[in-house]
């Protein structure tokens, strides 16, 4: 998919540029974008390192276990299979909390294990309702501090790079609720999704 997008952007870009008589701009862009990408990478590096470091302290202080306690009732409500399967419960919570705190490296392995555990003992290759709901919730990024965005805004000269925090929280939470609602409405209608 990314292969397709990348190639199409470049080919259309160069062709349209030739047709528009903008070959000089294309040439300049090809040669400067690569360099500015590296400058940009260095620009965001500081804030990302800082925040990953701070969040690692939170993680070492037991933030995941602490939040897991608060989250457990909701997890049991949303994913009935986690009531019997303790490993599924643990992996689902680890994934959601790692995403929330921005512990990027912890989220993917626990996400994969969570899906495996939730699907376990059904034997089919069609996702059960708990797995579907887990993916739907994962599609909305509920994140305490969207570090990359803030770093990018700081590198682009925003006066207050973090001023988008509150609208971002509202938007991701509303987005998550909408996603869950749409999914539940769709699955009630067809009744095809196995419990």
């Amino acid at each position: 998919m990314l292969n397709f997008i990348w190639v199409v952007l470049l080919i259309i870009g160069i062709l349209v540029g030739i047709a528009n008589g903008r070959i000089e701009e294309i040439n300049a862009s090809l040669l400067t974008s690569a360099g500015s990408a590296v400058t940009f990478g260095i620009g965001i590096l500081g804030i990302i390192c800082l925040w990953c470091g701070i969040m690692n302290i939170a993680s070492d202080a037991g933030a995941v276990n602490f939040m897991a306690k608060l989250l457990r009732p909701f997890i049991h409500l949303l994913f009935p299979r986690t009531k019997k399967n303790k490993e599924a419960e643990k992996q689902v919570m680890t994934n959601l909390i790692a995403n929330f705190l921005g512990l990027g490296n912890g989220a993917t392995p626990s996400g994969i294990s969570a899906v495996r555990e939730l699907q376990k003992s059904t034997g089919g290759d069609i996702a059960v309702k708990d797995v579907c709901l887990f993916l739907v919730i994962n599609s909305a990024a509920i994140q305490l501090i969207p570090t990359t965005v803030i770093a990018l805004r700081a590198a682009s000269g925003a006066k207050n790079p973090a001023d988008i925090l509150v609208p971002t929280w509202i938007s991701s939470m509303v987005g998550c609720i909408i996603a869950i609602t749409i999914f539940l409405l769709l699955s009630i209608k067809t009744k095809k999704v196995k419990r």
Partner: protein
Amino acid sequence: MLAYINYIIPLLVLIILLWGFLKNVDCFSSFLTGAKEGMQTVVDILPSLMGLMVAIGVFRASGALDIFVGLLKPITDIFNLDPQIIPLALLRPISGSASLAILSDVLKTSGADSLAGRTASVIMGSSETILYTMTIYLGASGIKKAPKVLLAALLAHFIAVIISNYLCIAFFS
């Protein structure tokens, strides 16, 4: 109204440090471990980010992006959206580095403190690369179909884009 925002990050750092200190965590070495991971993440995404920033740079310099955005204007006008953010809304579910490259392009051309720049930031921060996540999670678990998930996630994503825009209008103008 914006003053309270300045408290969020310093207070969070304060709470985390106090908590770590009281729990006898070696805060500084823990900080360094995390910071190294963060640095590794940036280094890992840099090549794909560079490639995509070049592609988007060329696409914009040729005038193709303006043509594309112009075509979308009648649709985006209905929802009061700035058409500049549509490429981001479309690419966000597909690729993290492509949407990062687009976001940096919007921030550069429209300004980080413009409505389009802020809306783009909110969209980037509040959504996920759902297609990528789904592919990885399902692929690794041997599941072939997840009914209704993609439809629900994408519908919710585009509704959230429209909501983000109105939130930014309400918060910043």
